[in-house]
């Protein structure tokens, strides 16, 4: 059995405004290293909210969160941003690239923030990631000038630049056609199998989910399966 990368213990979350609403109820689960997990559920069941908590961006919850055995709950915003930078890759439903920067610069940014390598090394790494995603030829283009599918892949490359322990995706294929969707799935598969990166993917796409290692199904703020 491989090591636990991410563990959630009894996570509860309330939305206080406009009325008190218990959105996540006692969520507990683990993600192992190299495991490809998908989270499914109807709109509004709290899966995106859960993902934001797991990604450490949302700190307003009760319960405990561990990454690589380290407890993240209760850390300050600055400490969490360092953790996010080094260990968590995040891919949004919308592509969210910085439009004024080139594709390459977008991918390089988190690594430059981390500051563990020289600019040349980072550039080399970023090119590797882009090539891995078959968009090496777009590296010098401005992020606004590439297509939606390409943006999605750039976003994935950016999420991978610091070799995170876990990659979290919010509807990564929501805006992609089946061709691109397949490509993304195959890539994730490879990352999980070859690089032993854990994947936690929130999706509505049953076909996509069925091919993952495990499906966590949520309903009304609880894990049902």
């Amino acid at each position, binding site marked *: 059995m491989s090591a636990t990368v991410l563990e959630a213990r009894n996570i509860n979350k309330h939305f206080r405004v406009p009325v008190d609403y218990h959105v996540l109820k006692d969520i507990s689960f683990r993600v192992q290293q190299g495991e490809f997990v998908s989270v499914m559920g109807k709109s509004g069941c709290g899966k995106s909210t859960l993902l934001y908590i797991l990604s450490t961006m949302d700190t307003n919850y009760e319960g405990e969160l561990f990454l690589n055995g380290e407890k993240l709950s209760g850390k300050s915003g*600055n400490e969490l941003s360092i953790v*996010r930078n080094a260990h968590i890759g995040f891919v949004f439903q919308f592509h969210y690239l910085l439009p004024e920067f080139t594709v390459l610069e977008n991918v390089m940014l988190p690594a430059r923030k981390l500051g563990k390598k020289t600019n040349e090394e980072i550039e080399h790494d970023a090119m590797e990631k882009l090539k891995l995603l078959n968009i090496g030829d777009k590296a010098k283009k401005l992020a606004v000038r590439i297509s939606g599918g390409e943006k999605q892949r750039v976003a994935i490359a950016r999420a991978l630049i610091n070799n995170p322990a876990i990659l979290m995706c919010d509807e990564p294929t929501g805006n992609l056609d089946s061709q691109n969707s397949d490509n993304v799935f195959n890539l994730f598969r490879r990352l999980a199998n070859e690089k032993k990166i854990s994947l936690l993917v929130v999706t509505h796409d049953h076909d996509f989910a069925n091919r993952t290692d495990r499906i966590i199904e949520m309903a009304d703020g609880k894990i049902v399966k």
Partner: protein
Amino acid sequence: MNFPVIFSISRTHLLSRMKQTVTASLGVTFGIGAFIILVSFMTGLNEMLDGLILNRTPHIHLYNQITPSPEQPVDLADAFKSSFNVVQSIKPKRAQTRIHNGLPILNFLRNDSRVKGAVPQVVAQVFYVSGSIELNGIINGVDILEEDRLFSISDYIVQGSTLELARTENGIIIGAGVARKMSVKPGDIIQITTPSGNIFPLKIVGVYESGLADIDDIQSYANLKTAQKLLGQSDNFITDINVKLHDLELAKPMSDKLARQFGIAAIDINSANAQFETGSDIRNLITYAVSIALLIVAGFGIYNILNMLIYEKMNDIAILKATGFSGFDVKMIFMVEALIIGIAGGILGLIIGYVVSVIIDHTPFETQALPTIKTFPVNFNPLYYIIGIVFALVTTFLAGYMPASRAQRIDPVEIIRGQ
């Protein structure tokens, strides 16, 4: 914090919004430029006007004042001590016009370390004679070279020079008004008669123009010896002593002390020209008030543009935070942008301010009042340039701080969820 990354993000933001960046910078540029121009011009004028007064006015002026005795004989008599005495029609006592012991006082002053210089003066009432016309006049007998060193008299000599007077024993530097009325020029001989009826021919070696018609129509300068000779007096005859100090602030206490010590009248520059300092202070105040107003306007420009930028960049801020940039990093990105705008705009403002100052400095400005001034006076004190750039940085820092703090507080989840 990783500064190069933050700087490169700031730079990209600014460069990709060149128009807004330039607009914001120009706000600062105009503010700083106007400040430099105003302050250089204003202080230049102030210094010149102050110089006009301060340079040629002695810090302490010693002279013999003709006044009635404050104590009348009846006040000294014991018999009338308890009574209320009224003395009518008191006349001033006849006294010598010269300063008693003038030369020893002069020596005493010259040996005082606080004194920059002390010069004797003999004031002689004369008539300038031209044919049948006699013009009323005053000749100041001075040690012309000392006078020039201490009171910059040569600034007001429009023809000839002080040196020529020093070389010519019976020379005279004549007031411009007198010269005009009598149509004489340097090189001519002018006849002077004294109240006692003596006639002296003096050679005109220069023309003096103070800008005040009342003075130029009457006053002339001659050597000390010449004036003494006109009055038929020996060389210990001195009517006035003008003192210049190293420190202007000492003028008041020193003049009081000298008056008591030597029993003569002494007047200090502050009592004589009290209004001047007030004028300068108020002009400076106006300069700074206008400049600060301009910079506040520029500051609001920056504040607006950064606010807009942050509003546009909500998504970017969210993504930066999601990928591991802390709130402080994000704040720094926008602070750096504000400061770059401030530095760029400020430096450009300094350059524009300098160039315009140079142009003003070369603009002809001729006035009767100031014969030696040919162009507008401008003060190129580097201190104002330092103040200018500090102003620019402080304004942009303050203007950038609030929007940047707002960016720091933006919750990425809210932005991402909102999509």
